[in-house]
């Protein structure tokens, strides 16, 4: 486990030689939340009121604490730190909702430390990059549990410390009780009782503590010593298969990224083939030299292990985004992760197959993937029927995920080839109360009806829950009319004379071939 603590970064250019503080609104006026080295040299302390601080140091620069911006910056930093390991977790809140402090993050380096030549080298690399890329002084610690790492990073004298497993009790002993991440009331109560260091707590019987203090106390002690697990909430969901490549020289061009992605995909395909699964969703992460991270997510219709297809989709997506234009100094690390897998079912070939038949479903899925990549995820649709009488509700166009089937419909009633998104009102001359239309005017053109079929009565769906104050939908009588020129329309009259409405209205809903 590794915990880092950084000073709050601010946005405006600030003179570093003069005292500079961040002020937080509190009871009694604004108080100092953080200060720089010059302010410390001037004798200011955190928690002091701003009025006293201004009296002590005359050229004081003050800025308000912006908690949201700090949290966003911390998340970006944790995101950048995923170049070391996919499990990076900012400190803000753990799963019990208790606060961990908002100025650092955890990294789970269990399987990643050996890639850097050991934990000390990883710490040195991380500390150097934080200083070079972000200008942040950091306090880092590696330990076997998150609680011990948190305490070491805050209260240990050295800025970088590695604790061998098993030494938590001895190392945490001399630290004050705040090192256990307890609430201020619990710490004050412990101090009143005479427990000033963690070591004093560790060798006492547990039952009296359980009776007098909230359960958080014993839980934090057990977490720090490793007796119970403390799960971390990673900032990105950890991928199933992951392949990362660090580069000696940063790369800028899209072709270089695609070539590198091809190599990464080849290594992933071997692992996927060994486990007999295919990728349904992938993420390409580009780690910029100056700390920004670009991620590109790709979804696929069918699980696939086809390198060329995935690379084509990545190429299309990189074309669409401006990731390459913002490359800056280049990307120093590129990672490809498979975030969703599905088993690939082996397909049995037909005995006699026409040329071009083999692999048609895969080609179809590849075509749909390419279209969705370039035109958007909702651009490829299919038809699906819905059990409803109202024609505009009788079918939906959901996005196409996999080819489906259109079940046989029992109705033989005439349905138009084209349906208008909203039925358009027309003026119709018809016999009252329920005669077919004789002449109608639609979009400025008058049509003489030569023949009509119908009516087909479609009533309102009374079983749908309606707000009490809305009147139920009127009944519709549909007519298929044909004019003298042979154009066929689908008209309906809304409302029954006398029963539902005094004057019926007519609409055009669709066009027949």
């Amino acid at each position, binding site marked *: 486990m590794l915990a880092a603590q950084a000073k709050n970064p601010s946005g405006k250019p600030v003179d570093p030689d003069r005292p500079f503080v961040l002020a937080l609104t509190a009871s009694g006026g604004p108080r100092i939340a953080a200060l720089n080295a010059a302010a410390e040299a001037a004798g200011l302390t955190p928690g002091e009121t701003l009025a006293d601080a201004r009296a002590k140091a005359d050229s004081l620069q003050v800025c308000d604490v912006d908690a949201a911006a700090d949290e966003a910056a911390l998340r970006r930093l944790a995101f950048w730190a995923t170049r070391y390991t996919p499990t990076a977790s900012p400190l803000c809140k753990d799963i019990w909702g208790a606060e961990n402090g908002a100025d650092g993050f955890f990294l789970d380096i269990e399987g990643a430390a050996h890639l850097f030549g050991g934990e000390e080298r990883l710490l040195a690399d991380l500390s150097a990059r934080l200083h070079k890329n972000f200008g942040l002084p950091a306090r880092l610690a590696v330990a076997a549990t998150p609680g011990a790492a948190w305490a070491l990073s805050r209260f240990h004298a050295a800025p970088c410390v590695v604790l061998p497993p098993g030494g938590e009790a001895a190392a945490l002993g001399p630290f004050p009780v705040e090192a256990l991440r307890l609430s201020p009331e619990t710490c004050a109560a412990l101090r009143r009782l005479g427990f000033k260091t963690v070591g004093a707590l560790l060798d006492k019987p547990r039952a009296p503590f359980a009776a007098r203090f909230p359960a958080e106390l014993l839980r934090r002690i057990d977490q720090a010593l490793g007796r119970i697990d403390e799960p971390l909430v990673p900032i990105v969901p950890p991928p199933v298969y992951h392949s990362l490549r660090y580069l000696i020289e940063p790369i800028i061009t899209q072709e270089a990224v695609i070539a590198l992605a091809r190599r990464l995909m080849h290594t992933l395909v071997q692992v996927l083939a060994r486990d007999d699964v295919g990728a349904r969703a992938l993420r390409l992460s580009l780690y910029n030299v100056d700390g920004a991270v670009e991620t590109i997510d790709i979804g696929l219709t069918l699980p696939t292990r086809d390198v060329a297809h995935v690379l084509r989709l990545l190429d299309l997506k990189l074309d669409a985004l401006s990731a390459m234009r913002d490359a800056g100094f280049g990307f120093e690390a590129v990672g490809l992760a498979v975030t969703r897998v599905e088993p690939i079912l082996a397909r049995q070939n037909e005995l006699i197959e026409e040329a*071009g038949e083999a692999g*048609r479903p895969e*080609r*179809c899925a*590849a*075509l*749909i993937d*390419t*279209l969705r990549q*370039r*035109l958007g995820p*909702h*651009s*490829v*649709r*299919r*038809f*699906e*029927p819905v059990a409803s009488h109202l*024609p505009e509700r*009788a*079918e939906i*166009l959901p996005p*196409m995920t996999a*080819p*489906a*089937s*259109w079940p046989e*419909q029992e*109705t033989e009633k*005439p*349905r*138009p*080839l*084209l*349906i*208008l*998104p909203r039925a358009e009102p027309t003026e119709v001359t018809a016999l009252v109360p329920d005669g077919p239309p004789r002449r109608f005017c639609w979009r400025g*053109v008058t049509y003489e009806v*030569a*023949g009509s*079929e119908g009516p087909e009565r479609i009533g309102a769906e009374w079983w749908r829950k309606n707000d009490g104050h809305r009147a139920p939908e009127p009944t519709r009588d549909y007519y*298929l009319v*044909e004019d*003298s*020129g*042979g*154009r*066929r329309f689908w008209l309906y009259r809304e409302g029954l004379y006398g029963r539902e409405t005094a004057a019926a209205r007519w609409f055009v809903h*669709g*066009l*027949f*071939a």
Partner: protein
Amino acid sequence: MREPTAFSVLRNRAAVAEELRRLLPKIEGFQRAKAIPFGLAALDHCLPQGGLAGGALHEIVPGERSTAAAFGFITALLARVARPHPLFFVLPTYGRRDYGRPYGHGLAARGLDPSRLILVKTSHRKATLWALEEALHSRAVAAVAGVIDKLDLRSSQRLQLAAADAGLPLFLLRPAELLETSAAATRWRVAAAPATRDRFGLIACARWRLMLERCRNGHAGEWTVEYDHVAHCFRLAAALADPAHAGGAGEKSFRQAG
């Protein structure tokens, strides 16, 4: 070797022209894909391969206020393509207010299984062209259709080459106002015609007036056809008309100039 005389030059020229006329469709790649015949001798006779060329671009222009008839014609052609392979339809969203969108139940009623159709919605013309080319190159679908407003000569040549390469038919619905020269193999104009009615007065089959305006290596013509969606076949309306009116049933055929 004696000098070619005037007569032998002329005979050679005629022979060469005949040879070229035979070879030209092969060079242009029309003959690689199967043609889609109409099943009507009158129509198939006018088309160079006895049917709609299987690997070419065909333009369909609606007549006056007959967009639905043009859609119906495209649906009928798509239904005649070999089943059960998927079909591709590109629909720009900016035409939605003019003519609505295809209705699945209506397609099923016209004999085209809606589950075969992959519907792609695009928001501008370049995306439409790109989607059409992608579908042709992928060879995953059996036929491609789309609605497009402006098509200049170069884009139509590209689409024609892509269709010939893939051996798939490409049907494009073009609005009548924006027609230009294009490299399409055929251009049809479809207008609505009164439908055939059965003895109860109900509509039995849809009927359209087809005008083949331009056809490469073929003749132009004008017919009134009706489409039977159950049997997926076209019928000449003239054949069903009352024999007393046989003369004016609307089949006129004229040779292409030059």
